[in-house]
């Protein structure tokens, strides 16, 4: 039993106006009220800190199975807890790929054994992530897959994508598309724009993203099946999704902390530090602005890290040799809060918090949708934020195996200080219970 006292409570929709208490019992939310007491409960006096439904990250790479020297389920789940996330969705671009129920079950079991944040696997759309034949979607759904995606790559074959949309429609599991038209993005290293012009490196144009998004929207309309676009990075791409939503189509999307906080100029200013190499690439300033506008107007449904850990031998190399990806699980919440505060709080706090809680929860399959609230009876998943806390990012303290990060050494304001999964403390930077 855990009693969180004197907290400002965000319940997934609204922000409380007075200090309240929250009692967690038997792994679920038991009561919300003022001046609660419970005999035998561990009591944490939060002194006004923010209690939220446990944060959910719909897009992480834990490299398990196959690339465990970069990350594995245990290090990843612990990193997620350290970063204030209580639930993460792992991408299936592993070796072998997660394209069958057995591997899904393996990951669920590995996640439970890690005893940190909840690990929910995504399965592949296609067998072996080859983009040719449909994977066993229904069996993977039964085994606990919460998304289907060939992430790392798009489902390039339009017929296959249409088939997957139709087939998954009644499985209550969404297709997550990595929007990229490969013929336009091939061999690209940076955004097509100022950095590609200045360095001569091949640029990835915005058209590569929006063409795939438009294709997905058209197929979603035709099949009447939901589609989710992940790590949307361009103004054009987000505009297309806004239009589709206006039309009432079941189209959703997420954006990443790095595309919300960094633009392409960091590649030049850092003199080609590989920490800034990521796919989709860091975009122009106008794209960053467009993503924030989309956060404000409700076009964006979730913020996801796309946590992409690598070994130093993959990443501490010259820019063009380095693999693409940013590892940020353990600082991404602070990155978003810090950027939000420093850009003059462009959206209300509630809106921002929705994108870590009720927003992503609504995209999960039915058993997990209550993760986004703190109603009585909801899972006892809680993330506690201290918006005033200022702390330096230090990759050497990370639970993740990654050691390259764009924000390493930076002072950021606004950090998760406690995380609970089913009423169990998985991260605590507060003092001991009273």
């Amino acid at each position, binding site marked *: 039993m855990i009693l969180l006292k004197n907290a400002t409570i965000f319940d997934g929709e609204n922000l409380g106006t007075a200090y309240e208490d929250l009692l967690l019992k038997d792994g679920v939310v038991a009561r919300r009220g003022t001046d609660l007491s419970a005999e035998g409960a561990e009591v944490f006096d939060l002194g006004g800190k923010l209690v939220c439904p446990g944060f959910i990250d719909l897009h992480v790479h834990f490299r398990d199975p196959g690339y465990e020297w970069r990350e594995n389920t245990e290090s990843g789940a612990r990193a997620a807890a350290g970063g204030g996330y209580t639930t993460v969705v792992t991408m299936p671009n592993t070796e072998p790929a997660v394209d069958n129920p057995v591997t899904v079950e393996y990951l669920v079991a590995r996640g439970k054994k890690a005893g940190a944040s909840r690990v929910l696997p995504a399965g592949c759309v296609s067998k072996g992530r080859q983009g040719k034949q449909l994977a066993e979607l229904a069996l993977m759904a039964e085994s606990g897959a919460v998304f289907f995606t060939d992430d790392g790559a798009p489902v390039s074959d339009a017929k296959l994508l249409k088939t997957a949309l139709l087939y998954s429609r009644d499985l209550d599991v969404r297709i997550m598309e990595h929007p990229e038209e490969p013929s336009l993005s091939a061999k690209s290293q940076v955004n097509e*724009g*100022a950095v590609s012009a200045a*360095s*001569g*490196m091949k640029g990835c*144009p915005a058209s590569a993203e929006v063409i795939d998004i438009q294709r997905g929207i058209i197929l979603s309309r035709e099949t009447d099946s939901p589609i989710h676009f992940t790590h949307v990075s361009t103004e054009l791409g987000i505009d297309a999704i806004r239009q589709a939503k206006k039309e009432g189509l079941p189209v959703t999307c997420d954006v990443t902390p790095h595309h919300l906080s960094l633009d392409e100029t960091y590649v030049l200013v850092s003199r080609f530090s590989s920490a800034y190499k990521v796919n989709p690439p860091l975009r122009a300033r106008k794209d960053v602005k467009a993503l924030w506008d989309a956060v404000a107007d409700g076009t964006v449904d979730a913020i996801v890290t796309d946590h992409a850990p690598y070994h130093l031998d993959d990443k501490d190399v*010259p820019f*063009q040799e380095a693999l693409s990806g940013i590892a940020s699980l353990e600082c991404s919440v602070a990155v978003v809060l810090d950027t939000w505060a420093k850009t003059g709080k462009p959206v209300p706090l509630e809106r921002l918090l929705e994108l870590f809680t009720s927003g992503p929860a609504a995209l999960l399959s039915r058993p997990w949708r209550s993760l986004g609230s703190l109603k009585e009876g909801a899972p006892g998943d809680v993330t506690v934020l201290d918006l005033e806390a200022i702390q330096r990012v230090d990759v050497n303290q990370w639970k993740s195996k990654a050691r390259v990060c764009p924000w390493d050494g930076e002072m950021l304001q606004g950090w998760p200080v406690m995380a609970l999964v089913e009423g169990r403390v998985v991260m605590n930077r507060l003092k001991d219970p009273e």
Partner: protein
Amino acid sequence: MEWRHKNLITLEGWTREELGFFLDQTEYMEELLNRPIKKVPALRGKIVMNCFFENSTRTRASFEIAGKVLSADVINWSSSGSSASKGETLRDTVWTLEAMAADAVVVRHGEVGVPDYLAKKLTKASVFNAGDGTNGHPTQALLDLYTARQKLGNLEGAKMAIIGDVLHSRVARSDIQAFRKMGVHVTLSGPATLMPENTASLGVGYVSDAREAAEGADILYFLRMQRERQEDGLIPSIDEYHRRWGATDSLVSLASPRAVVMHPGPMNRGMEIASSVADGPRSVILDQVRSGVAVRMALLYLCLGGVR
């Protein structure tokens, strides 16, 4: 002038005054090259490592000559004969160079940003960029500037046309940077498929028609054209390219009366430049090569502690 640069990775941080001072120093160095005995003890006891991970003839030779004229010990570390071909990471190579007490590392590499990477990792040695992928070739830009200044005098307000495959050219990128700093107006020309998406961000103009770019120009700079661009489908044929953007007598005749024709070499005669232009009265291509040695002498001299 107190010389504050230890490395030359890019000319971005160099001021116009520094460029001017550098070109003056280069003049002294060229005088040295005219002496019967081309050797001074300025850099005796210094070790210069020539690390060429990509083929090069003139840049490599000219760095080697520059070091030797100044009495530095120059070691050639080539990728084929070294551990780079055995799959050693660049990180390990760097630490090896450091352990061997190199005072300067001259690096050419096929990838953008490798000299930056070396400069971040090396704690003692100077790093000189001898060409990194499509990104930069700053000593080429310095020798081009030096040659142009020798022929034309003050470059302020001069007009320059850079014609060819700008998209893949590190020479074009460094020259744009350097010539703009000296007050030169730069216009690019070439097929749109061989231009960066965003030429305006480079601070230069672009015209498709080479004749328009050449009209009244004081410097005509032709870039190397590679056959693989045709294979990549970026141009339909070499012949079409030569007719529209190649250095021909008729194109050169449109330039200003004092105009010079430059090319970074090696030339593909009949492709981006006709022999009559390459060997013609406007061509300063061999002067560029000679300037290359003097420029690299000045660089080694200034950055390795000649005047402190």
